[in-house]
């Protein structure tokens, strides 16, 4: 009797473990093909962009890309420690530090999307008619302190959060001052973008969101009482860059494949593929790596938007940029 029981126990335990192991082996049986570890932000992954474009590259080069989708800060940390081969992130200041410190080989612009202000559908503050993002924020601040509006901040050091701080800084509020805004109207959530939008839906509050997450939440009817109340300020561009990890610091990284991936992303084929990704009836990411389509925009963004000054024209204007040989470039409306 005892023997039978021990046998049954052993068989079940073995079945669980062997079954799991077998499943794991099946899942990794394609390990003979080269693999590339890509650390990226949740926005590129959760929006479905990577699932859309990566299989093409994987088939072309017969490789497998392991995507690790985390916050920008964490992605850059993984790169510093050499735990991934390449980064696709959107945190320009941190990226520049990363490359300057020698961890990244080079920073190449790939694409951008937009931050927008999202608020109650009725837009009680009329941010829609603001001249620029700063003015919209001023309205939120004034009404907030008067007890007439609320704002939910990511407050998590994410790319979105730092963009929000950049806008506040144009109004003279630095990081410390913003953190001291009264919680009666300025809610520092520490949550991800989707969760913050869900909070706004509940609280009738405004927030700064990336448009991909907004469209996706709208499309699935999760935030029926919200609307995009302001968009179009190029100060709200969200620039994504690709950075292969420096193989002189971390010799084990797959540099060849990382470089191939970078080159493919900025190639015409890669850029076209990014541009063709639509969801919820909108193009989510705008390629700006090649001179023909968006070189001007990328330069302007690279040089000016990171410090939050200068460019305040509507982002639509960049779609009809004309390439000229003279500098400064200027946009044609």
């Amino acid at each position, binding site marked *: 009797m005892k023997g039978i029981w021990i046998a049954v126990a052993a068989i079940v335990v073995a079945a669980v473990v062997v*079954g799991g192991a077998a499943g794991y082996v099946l*899942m990794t049986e394609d390990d003979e093909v080269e693999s590339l570890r890509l650390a990226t932000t949740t926005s590129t992954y959760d929006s479905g962009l990577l699932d859309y474009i990566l299989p093409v590259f994987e088939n072309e080069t017969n490789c497998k890309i392991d995507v690790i989708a985390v916050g920008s800060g964490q992605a850059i940390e993984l790169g510093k420690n050499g735990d991934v081969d390449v980064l696709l992130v959107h945190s320009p200041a941190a990226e520049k530090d990363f490359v300057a410190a020698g961890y990244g080989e080079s920073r190449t612009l790939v694409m951008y999307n937009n931050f927008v202000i999202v608020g109650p559908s009725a837009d009680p503050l009329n941010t829609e008619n603001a001249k620029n993002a700063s003015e919209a924020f001023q309205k939120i601040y004034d009404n907030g302190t008067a007890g007439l509006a609320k704002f939910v901040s990511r407050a998590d050091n994410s790319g979105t959060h730092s963009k929000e701080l950049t806008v506040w800084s144009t109004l003279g509020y630095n990081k410390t001052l913003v953190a001291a805004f009264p919680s009666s109207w300025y809610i520092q959530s520490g949550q991800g973008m989707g969760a913050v939008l869900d909070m706004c839906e509940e609280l009738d509050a405004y927030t700064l969101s990336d448009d991909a997450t907004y469209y996706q939440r709208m499309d699935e009817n999760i935030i029926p009482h919200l609307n995009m109340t302001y968009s179009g300020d190029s100060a709200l561009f969200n620039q994504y860059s690709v950075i292969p990890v420096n193989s002189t610091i971390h010799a084990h990284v797959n540099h060849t494949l990382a470089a191939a991936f970078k080159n493919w992303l900025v190639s015409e084929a890669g850029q076209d593929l990014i541009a063709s990704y639509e969801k919820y009836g909108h193009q989510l990411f705008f390629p700006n790596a090649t001179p023909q389509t968006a070189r001007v925009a990328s330069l302007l963004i690279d040089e000016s938007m990171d410090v939050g000054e200068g460019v305040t024209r509507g982002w639509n204007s960049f779609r009809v940029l004309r390439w000229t040989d003279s500098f400064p470039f200027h946009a044609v409306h």
Partner: protein
Amino acid sequence: MISTGSELLDVTLLSLYVSGMATILGSAIGIPLGALIGLKEFGGKGAVKTLTYTLYGFPPVLSGLVVYYVFSRAGPLGDLGILFTPTAMIIAETFLVIPLVTGITITSVVEVDRSIKDTVKALGASSSQSIVTVMREAWVGLVMACMIGFGRVIAEVGAAYLVGGNIDGETRVLTTAIMLETRMGHFEWAMSLGIVLLSVALMVFLFLRLLQEREML
């Protein structure tokens, strides 16, 4: 995203594999350790017990962070290259199992009646034989220790995400999949995965209960 049945099966099997291995390893360490602490007299025993119970509250993310730093390329064991593999997840989760199993084992063997320990000794058992017998008398508690350990890791997401990376087809387990679907706003789908997770846990617990309730004849 999990979109096919075979993907769901893979993710479920990997969850079972990682949690099962972590429970087995954690119990293999925790049960002898708990027996040692519970049955031997030594100085500082109270402090050791308090420390064990305190570690019940060890945050999974912290365990993940420690394992990350050890197995990161920049860390001491980086050359093994096991970061972002199920192995790293098992290691991180084993650390979460050990204090629970150790603590519950201590309680279980201490609660075996003093008179049973005396009887066993009086019947002529050597000290190692009496430890084995006392452990067998504590059987219900020991299986309970394994159940609680398994329950903790199958439901854990922080460490699994940090050292596994939630890589599709590689290190995605049920909890990290639930987190991803939630982040994407797919609440219903996330909920369904939660039900899968609970069903899997239910099956494992039913088996362990069977093991626990039978009389050791």
